[in-house]
């Protein structure tokens, strides 16, 4: 779907090129920002499900165990990030 749109826009000569250029510039920044937010969310998610790994008591260990397998690869980076920040609340967002 994205490709079609792109082709359509590109067919507009110099004006179209400019439009495409600015669009691309803006999107790139947005995408970067979105990715960053997304990874913060990932870490927030692990914090509220597996927080007891850092000594933060989390409610139901029985069910958080079910989620554990899916976050195994992120655990190390998550721990590093959480413990690196001066104030870990900063790292939430």
């Amino acid at each position: 779907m994205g490709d079609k749109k792109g082709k359509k826009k590109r067919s507009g000569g110099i004006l179209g090129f400019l439009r495409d250029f600015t669009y691309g510039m803006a999107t790139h920044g947005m995408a970067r920002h979105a990715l960053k937010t997304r990874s913060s969310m990932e870490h927030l998610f692990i914090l509220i499900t597996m927080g007891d790994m850092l000594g933060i008591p989390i409610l139901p260990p029985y069910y958080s165990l079910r989620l554990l397998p899916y976050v195994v690869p992120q655990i190390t980076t998550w721990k590093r990030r959480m413990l690196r920040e001066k104030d870990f609340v900063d790292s939430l967002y």
Partner: protein
Amino acid sequence: MSFADELLRYPERRYIMFGGKGGLGKTSFSAATAYYLAKKGKKVLVFSVDPQASLSDIFERDIFGKGNVEIMPNLFACEVDADRRIRDYQEEIRKKIMDMYGMKKIPEEIESYIKASSAEPAMEESAIFDAVVDIIVEGGFDYYIYDLVPLGHALYYLSMASIYDAWLEKITQLREQMREYDKAIATMKREEVTEEDQIYKELLYIKNRIGTSSKIMTDKEKTAFFFVITPERMTIADTEKAATLFRRYNVPIAGYLVNRVIDKGLLERDIPDYLRNRILSQDEAMKEIKDRFGDQVIATVPEFDSEIKGLESIRRLAEAMFEESLR
């Protein structure tokens, strides 16, 4: 109203629970009710999650951790081994991790997390209630009689269930937001979102499990919760407190059963003062029970001359509870 009427009045009713302080006769009543329903041709499962294994004692059979054991025609009993369940569950998680990432060994920090989880106090309750959901979801019985863990545990779980629920709601929302971001990023990068979010699926599963287990305890049509009391002041006061709490969590309380009532007729005879005083104080307590619980008292069961143990004495107890011969 008699206990039999109360029990069979609702055709939808499937879950019967006995609650009360420890040692008042919950297990005996569970067994006797199961016996009665089985004799009436209903297929009954009586189950317990108490590690002290009282069903094994009353049926004089070792059924602990052995699944559904047939005691007599239509009557099955089951005692859940919560510890083993937790161990199996942890092993299942380990295996899943190793399979998913092709590991030979669980990384140390993950392993210590798994190990530590079993030390959490909520772990056992959660495992127990999860086991109950398993039993009930499996189906196959007309009635399920739940020989409940002491009141504290049940209340603890009920309050946990609502907190769990709020917690899950929050993380599910977060997960949905993350999913939105995934989609947006994919659109911007002109890619397709292909992989399914497994965590989201797990969250929905967990939600469903918790929902089912708290629903079992609060379903007005399917569940009946009976309190077992004895004619003693302290029991009455404690039970009343517990009943108020249970009501707050919408547990449908269907009635009270009074156990261990000594025959008042004995007063006419030449009996020791000890017994006379016991009878008189029970009589006072009975008046109080009548005042406080009124017609919610649906059965009064006498004190037996021996312990309830084995099918023969269970039958005698059932006859007293249901006021009919079950030979």
